[in-house]
């Protein structure tokens, strides 16, 4: 792989395909499997209903509807759907009829079974109600018989109607849906105007999982007229009425009949359920494969709809974007597609010349994909522009870790991501739909690197859950003989200043911050100075790197003017302003040893002096400079930096103006250069600008250049200041974790032996949960966002245009992965 392949997006080409009508389907299916071509819609003006393969798409939609119905039924029964994860090829068009027939049959069967079982269930319900009615009336009559011993009473009202009375006294029984007690009363008073007695018995019944309260009522009345009236009232209350035989013997007989019918119904219902279950289980085995097949067919016909029919109606013409490197594979796919369809005429693919801007296609693997997404979220790179993603792979987790430096928190993050990475296949197969989880899972490699880098920066900051580790031995030794540090001095003073001159051994702690600083009261002052300098150094380096990437862009797009009038003054300006500062920081670190710890000048004042040229500078010379001649050099830098501004602002417009007047030859050269790099949009824009300048005026270029210059010069300062967020966030993180330790975990160490263990057992859990929630999740999120901003704004603004459009190949991959409801 050459460097260009890593740096830039794939070289793309526009192709024309001639597909024989009978082979087109198979060819498109093969192309969908490899997923390397992006078809252009050749009839954008034709609406969806006027296209060639409308009926096929409609058939596919019908099949999808049937499959959705089946899936709903399967879900209703809680049958697990077999997901083997295999990816069937798109079936040939003639198989579509078979598929349709299968689904049709299944759907009809399901519908029939459903309607049958519904009818059966309704029947069953009615019978159960009848059963309850019979039972209740039976108990009612029995109770009254026992309750009222008085023969006259029982005879006149409550006993079995004798044959004489049968015509006069009627009874109606029924079920009503009970809503409330008062409702019952209302209806009973309503009815009892006409009849002798209304009786409600409350019942609770369980039907279809949800329980329904119903009441049984018995109404006694006399006369046919009343009967019709009562019936009407009952209808008004939506009560179901049942015939009730009047003698006990008849009732018993009826009850027995009802019982046998219920039993029969139960067996029939069971059989229908069994049948339904069998059908659904058989369908569940195949449903995933079926729906993938149908969606593939649909996708193919959608694609075919984008093609043009040629004059002879014998072949379809397609236009597509594809990577130049993959032309062989595409040709191979076309060949096998043609073979599969049995067509004798081969399909042809031709490269086309075009002035259209090709789509941007960055080849990614599962590791780089996450980082590419981060870059693309800001803006898709222009075609063949330098792609920052390969650099982002390292700089992003690193800048994150600078803000998140803690070995403990880094280890938690790393282990979590490691779990996701190691269990990748299983977790992918599970297809968890949870959005938060899938976000973490998608960024697992980013999180893994972020965790690993955080462990490293934690080692540099020497922080593990805000405590320091003394791994290599502290390099500060208190001399036993020194009077300044003995017991008497300790008792006398509140704090003792440990002077590096006598106590520092001279060789520094091998890696990171010396653990002794964790005990010092000026720890924050020390780490602040260290972290601020580090964040400035990192920021300046990243900005320099961004500017040097812009050089690669200018060279690739053959714009020498931009190198001379943009790139060089940018580098010089940034160096004069801040590159020098970085050098000063390193000089300060290297030049002064522990013996001369009082001498180093303050960097802040040096910078102030650089910018504000003070009249009486000899005074500062003695106090604040590192060496002789520094003052002169600094003044020179300021002057150069100021000169860079007009260089950037006026250079290009002036040069072009000059060329327009006198430089005939150059104009021709420019035009040649123009045709040479016509493919890129940026070049087009630029060349259009040039032509404009050549033929019209230079004010537009001037305005563009002025804006660009001001943006860059102000940006240089504000971006450098912006990198200080590295320090601020890492300070906040360290302080927050220290506070959490002091406020929560420290409580547990105050107890006596024994109780302390139990307190520790409980408090540790609280501390651990808070650590994960606040320090790892919340702080991690905030550090992530800041790292994102540093990349998008501070880094990419130096070279990245990000106005391309992304390559969306026609591929079956997304079809096989996506769940059917999407």
């Amino acid at each position: 792989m050459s460097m260009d392949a890593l740096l830039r997006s794939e070289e793309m080409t526009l192709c024309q395909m001639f597909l024989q009508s009978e082979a087109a389907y198979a060819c498109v299916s093969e192309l969908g499997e490899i997923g390397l071509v992006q078809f252009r819609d050749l009839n954008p003006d034709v609406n969806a209903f006027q296209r060639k393969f409308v009926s096929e798409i409609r058939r596919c939609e019908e099949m999808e509807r049937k499959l959705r119905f089946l899936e709903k039924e399967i879900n209703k029964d809680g049958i697990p759907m077999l997901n083997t994860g295999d990816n069937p090829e798109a079936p040939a068009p003639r198989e579509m009829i078979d598929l349709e027939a299968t689904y049709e049959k299944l759907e009809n069967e399901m519908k029939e079974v459903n309607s049958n079982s519904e009818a059966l269930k309704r029947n069953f319900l009615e019978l159960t109600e009848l059963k309850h009615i019979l039972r209740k009336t039976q108990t009612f009559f029995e109770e009254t018989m026992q309750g009222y011993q008085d023969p006259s009473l029982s005879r006149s009202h409550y006993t079995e109607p004798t044959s004489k009375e049968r015509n006069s006294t009627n009874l109606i029984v029924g079920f009503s849906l009970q809503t409330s007690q008062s409702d019952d009363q209302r209806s009973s008073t309503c009815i009892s105007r006409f009849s002798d007695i209304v009786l409600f018995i409350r019942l609770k019944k369980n039907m279809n999982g949800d329980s329904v309260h119903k009441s049984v009522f018995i109404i006694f009345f006399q006369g046919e007229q009343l009967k019709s009236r009562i019936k009407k009232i009952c209808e008004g209350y939506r009560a179901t009425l049942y015939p009730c035989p009047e003698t006990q013997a008849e009732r018993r007989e009826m009850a027995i009949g009802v019982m046998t019918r219920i039993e029969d119904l139960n067996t029939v219902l069971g059989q229908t359920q069994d049948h339904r279950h069998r059908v659904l289980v058989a369908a569940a085995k195949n449903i995933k494969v079926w729906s993938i097949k149908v969606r593939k067919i649909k996708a193919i016909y959608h694609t075919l709809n984008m093609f043009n029919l040629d004059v002879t109606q014998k072949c379809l013409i397609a236009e597509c974007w594809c990577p130049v490197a993959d032309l062989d594979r595409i040709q191979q796919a076309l060949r096998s597609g043609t073979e599969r369809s049995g067509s004798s005429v081969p399909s042809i693919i031709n490269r086309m010349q075009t002035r259209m801007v090709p789509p941007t296609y960055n080849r990614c693997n599962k590791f780089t994909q996450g980082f590419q997404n981060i870059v693309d979220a800001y803006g898709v790179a222009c075609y063949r522009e330098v792609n920052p993603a390969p650099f982002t792979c390292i700089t992003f987790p690193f800048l994150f870790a600078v803000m998140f430096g803690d070995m403990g928190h880094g280890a938690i993050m790393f282990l979590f991501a490691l779990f996701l990475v190691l269990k990748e296949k299983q977790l992918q197969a599970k297809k968890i739909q949870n959005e938060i989880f899938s976000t973490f899972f998608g960024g697992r490699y980013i999180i893994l690197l972020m965790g690993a880098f955080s462990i490293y920066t934690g080692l540099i900051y020497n922080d593990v859950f805000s405590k320091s580790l003394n791994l290599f031995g502290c390099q500060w030794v208190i001399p036993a003989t020194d009077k300044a540090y003995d017991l008497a001095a300790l008792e006398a003073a509140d704090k003792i200043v440990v002077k590096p001159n006598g106590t520092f051994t001279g060789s520094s702690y091998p890696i990171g911050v010396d653990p002794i600083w964790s005990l010092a009261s000026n720890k924050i002052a020390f780490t602040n100075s260290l972290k601020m300098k580090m964040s400035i150094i990192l920021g300046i380096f990243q900005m320099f790197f961004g500017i040097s990437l812009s050089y690669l862009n200018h060279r690739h797009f053959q714009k020498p003017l931009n190198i001379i009038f943009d790139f060089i003054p940018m580098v010089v300006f940034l160096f004069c302003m801040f590159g020098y500062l970085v050098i000063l920081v390193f000089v300060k670190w290297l030049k002064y040893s522990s013996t001369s710890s009082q001498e180093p000048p303050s960097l802040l004042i040096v910078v102030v002096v650089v910018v504000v040229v003070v009249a009486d500078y000899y005074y500062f010379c003695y106090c604040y400079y590192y060496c002789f001649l520094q003052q002169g050099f600094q003044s020179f830098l300021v002057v150069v930096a100021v000169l860079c501004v007009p260089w950037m602002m006026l250079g290009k417009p002036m040069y072009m103006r000059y060329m327009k007047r006198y430089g005939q030859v150059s104009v021709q050269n420019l035009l040649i250069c123009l045709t040479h790099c016509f493919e890129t949009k940026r070049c087009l824009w630029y060349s259009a600008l040039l032509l404009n300048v050549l033929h019209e005026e230079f004010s537009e270029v001037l305005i563009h250049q002025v804006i660009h210059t001001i943006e860059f010069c102000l940006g240089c300062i504000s971006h450098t200041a912006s990198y200080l967020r590295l320090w601020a966030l890492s300070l906040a993180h360290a302080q927050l974790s220290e506070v959490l330790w002091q406020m929560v975990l420290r409580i547990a160490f105050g107890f006596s032996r024994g109780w302390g263990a139990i307190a520790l057992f409980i408090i540790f859990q609280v501390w651990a949960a808070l650590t994960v929630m606040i320090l790892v999740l919340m702080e991690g999120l905030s550090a992530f966002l800041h790292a994102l901003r540093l990349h998008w704004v501070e880094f990419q603004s130096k070279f990245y245009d990000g106005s391309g459009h992304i390559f969306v190949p026609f591929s079956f991959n997304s079809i096989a992965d996506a769940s059917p409801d999407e």
Partner: protein
Amino acid sequence: MGCPILGPKCSAYYMIISVWGIIMLVLMGIFFQIRTPSLFEDISVDEEEWSNHGMSLDFVKSKYEDNAVNCWIAAALYAVLFVFSFIQQRMNARQTYETS
């Protein structure tokens, strides 16, 4: 085997917490035992109480030791919790296996 008390998520949570607890508390116990100066601020030496003991080194030493023992006991408790939640996890796994 009976019904699990903890759900599958809860038992996984406690398993992770207890592994973390065991590792960290055993290490902290060792650090207290070797009387690391970084943890001096954590052992809550009360100035008055200390001066009652004549500002002696032994008082601080015993404090350090108490905390070391506490850490190890807590680690042992977490070991118990780990075994418990591990069994729960197994039971949950078996139950989901049986029902599916």
